């Protein structure tokens, strides 16, 4: 049994387990100590507490120095003051020193209003910087998805923890020392040239404006204002489960109908759903799974199993950089975003009587890697991207505010057709386990020729980082693996590489929680409990849908009849499948 100790914090007695930090103990009695570098992702069992920022210092009776509460442990009988005048004085000095090497860009900074540094400086009542010292000046590094403005970095190093410990991408490290120290990719190369996957988890935890998404809002406003352009939009499933948070709505509120109304009010010519393309993904990926499985069962030794899902662009970047030798294992099916694009520009445009060059396809995504994905050369026709650009959930929320809409009271409208109709299977793409559940629903019925009695596969759901389940395909037992977060993905991938994997299919999503925890979502400020609530919202929308299996989507059936032919057919291969690249640095012998 844990040993409990008693101590006093701000004149209140508190009992905690031995080893508890002062910060956690204070929280237990409702005392919030401001922190900048500290980050506790409880569900992932990650605590980042380098004690570097010094904002969380507290006064301990009998100690000469103030203690950083995030990494100082409670001891029996301690008397701690978290907001004494000595503490406030120190915090203010620390903050002033930090601000003395920070640009005063708040008026135009992308993070303004959502910036931990700004909030704490305001709460501390800092009105003047008494220190004039050197200022860091770094080149702003603009990649297709993420912007690094290291002048705004306060060296909290949360991004490093996400990049190295959670995601095991290893693109970022602290470099140099003293005043010169900064977080950067190897050799201070641009992010674009590094092993960065654009998962955006660094952006999601950055307490300042040092790491932000590449903003496409202004481009969108220009296009919406241009009468010669037909601007259509697709919205990813995870967006509807989180957008409301930006307007003060309760976490886990579904705002599908309000989001559609808002998009229509903004002036989009058609408001469609990426869920439709998710259904299409299931048709293609599910067919590919059954083809590979069939060949495997017939004794084909060359066929690649397990099949890995390929709808997450962060994940695609990850294996291209870190496991290129395995690039023929993932499904060749494009992501839903990139299936939507070519169908819109090759099929829908004709139906609407619009020329390809006059159509702008915009996506609303919970993701920053999607910004990069739509710029990939293989997803362009004569330089024209199938999806012109992608807007994050946060950017959409900002735009709705700019357009002066009272989001909470907006009426609820439906998506346009044909590309707005989707099934419950498409909706759950937004959460970990959802893609493989959607694929299972369709693959089961196609393989067995029987109707599923119960479409909910609870064994595939949950928030554990790595999960496995067996699904009975009428006598054939399928082993399914699921990983979310690239660190977990790496573990499953290493098993596959070493021949130790017995899975038939594996679903991988780069972000913890899946797309609901994407790098473009409303910031959760370290509270990962929001992920399960967002996931529950998607499962609710799925449960409420009349059609819950992708292959029963009437518009998908029509699309194959009128245009595509059959899944994994010739036209599908051209428009809906892709190939992958080896992006690993090769060491060549001279």
């Amino acid at each position, binding site marked *: 049994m844990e040993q409990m100790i008693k101590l006093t914090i701000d004149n209140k007695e508190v009992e905690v387990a031995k080893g508890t930090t002062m910060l956690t103990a204070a929280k237990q009695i409702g005392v919030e100590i401001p922190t900048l570098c500290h980050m506790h992702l409880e569900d992932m069992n990650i605590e980042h507490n380098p004690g570097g920022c010094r904002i969380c210092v507290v006064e301990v009776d009998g100690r000469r120095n103030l203690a950083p509460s995030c990494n100082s442990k409670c001891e029996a009988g301690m008397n701690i003051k978290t907001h004494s005048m000595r503490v406030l004085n120190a915090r203010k000095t620390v903050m002033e020193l930090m601000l003395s090497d920070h640009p005063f860009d708040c008026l135009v900074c992308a993070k303004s209003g959502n910036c931990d540094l700004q909030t704490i400086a305001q709460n501390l009542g800092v009105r003047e910087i008494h220190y004039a010292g050197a200022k860091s000046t770094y080149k702003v590094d603009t990649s297709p998805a993420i912007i690094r403005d290291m002048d705004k970095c306060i060296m909290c190093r949360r991004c490093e923890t996400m990049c*190295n410990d959670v995601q095991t*991408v*290893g*693109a*970022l*490290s*602290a*470099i*140099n*020392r003293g005043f010169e120290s900064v977080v*950067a*990719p*190897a*050799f201070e190369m641009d992010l674009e*040239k*590094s*092993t960065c996957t654009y998962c955006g988890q660094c952006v999601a935890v950055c307490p300042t404006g040092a790491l932000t998404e590449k903003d496409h809002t202004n481009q969108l406003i220009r296009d919406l204002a241009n009468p010669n352009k037909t601007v259509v939009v697709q919205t990813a499933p995870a967006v509807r489960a989180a957008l409301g948070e930006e307007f003060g709505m309760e976490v886990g509120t579904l705002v599908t109908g309000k989001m559609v109304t808002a998009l229509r009010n903004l002036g989009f010519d058609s408001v469609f759903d990426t869920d439709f393309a998710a259904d299409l993904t299931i048709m293609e990926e599910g067919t590919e799974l059954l083809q590979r499985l069939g060949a495997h069962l017939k004794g084909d030794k060359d066929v690649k199993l397990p099949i890995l899902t390929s709808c997450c662009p962060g994940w695609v970047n990850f294996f291209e950089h870190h496991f*290129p030798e395995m690039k023929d294992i993932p499904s060749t099916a494009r992501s839903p975003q990139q299936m939507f694009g070519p169908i819109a520009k090759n099929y829908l445009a004709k139906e609407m009587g619009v020329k390809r060059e006059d159509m702008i396809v915009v996506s609303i995504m919970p993701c920053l890697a999607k910004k990069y994905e739509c710029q990939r050369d293989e997803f362009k026709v004569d330089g024209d991207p199938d999806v012109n650009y992608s807007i994050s959930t946060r950017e959409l929320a900002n735009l709705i505010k700019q357009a002066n809409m009272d989001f909470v009271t907006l009426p609820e409208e439906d998506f346009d057709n044909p590309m707005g109709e989707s099934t419950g299977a498409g909706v759950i793409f937004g959460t970990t386990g959802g893609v493989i559940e959607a694929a299972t629903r369709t693959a089961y019925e196609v393989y067995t020729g029987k109707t599923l009695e119960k479409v909910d596969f609870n064994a595939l759901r949950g928030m554990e980082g790595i999960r496995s389940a067996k699904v009975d395909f009428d006598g054939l037992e399928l082993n399914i693996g699921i990983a979310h977060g690239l660190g977990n993905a790496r573990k499953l991938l290493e098993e596959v590489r070493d021949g130790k994997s017995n899975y038939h299919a594996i679903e991988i999503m780069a972000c913890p929680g899946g797309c609901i925890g994407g790098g473009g979502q409303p910031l959760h400020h370290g509270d990962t409990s929001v992920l399960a609530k967002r996931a529950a919202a998607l499962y609710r929308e799925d449960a409420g849908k009349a059609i819950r299996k992708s292959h029963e989507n009437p518009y998908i059936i029509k699309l194959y009849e009128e245009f595509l032919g059959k899944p994994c057919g010739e036209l599908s291969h051209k428009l809906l499948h892709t190939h992958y*690249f*080896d*992006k*690993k*640095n*090769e*060491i*060549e*012998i*001279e």
Partner: protein
Amino acid sequence: MAKIKLAKDKIEKLIDICKSFNNEGSELINVLHQAQHNFGYLPAEVQEVVARELDVSVAHVYGVVTFYSFFTMVPMGEFPISVCMGTACYVRGAEKVLEELKKHLKVPIGETTEDGKFSISCLRCVGACGLAPVVTIGERTYGRVAAGDVADILKEYQN
């Protein structure tokens, strides 16, 4: 796919160094130490190979290389000169010695003479404060160096 060019014997040597530390990521500093001892400096290519062999990220290797002033990414001279600027050496006139070296060799700190013979760097304390000010050239250590001794010391290496 970016390509990194490095001579075959150099790659083999590096792989051997990594192997001698059981390819353990925690031995990174020792590996880099040996690598610099062998190659004179740690260019990007060397760091790429070390990262691959120890299964750590290149960003991490670069982070360590840039953190420790001992490591350098520019080729050092045949006779690398280090002037200790620790407190004891500094107060006993290390700066004057350094100025004198710069004057003689006509290169700034951190760079190498055109003929590749000498490079100058500063370091913080070699643990021989009793000999302050201390200058090291290659493996040799010179104690109680005065600015006036510089010309004679350098002469030892002119042949």
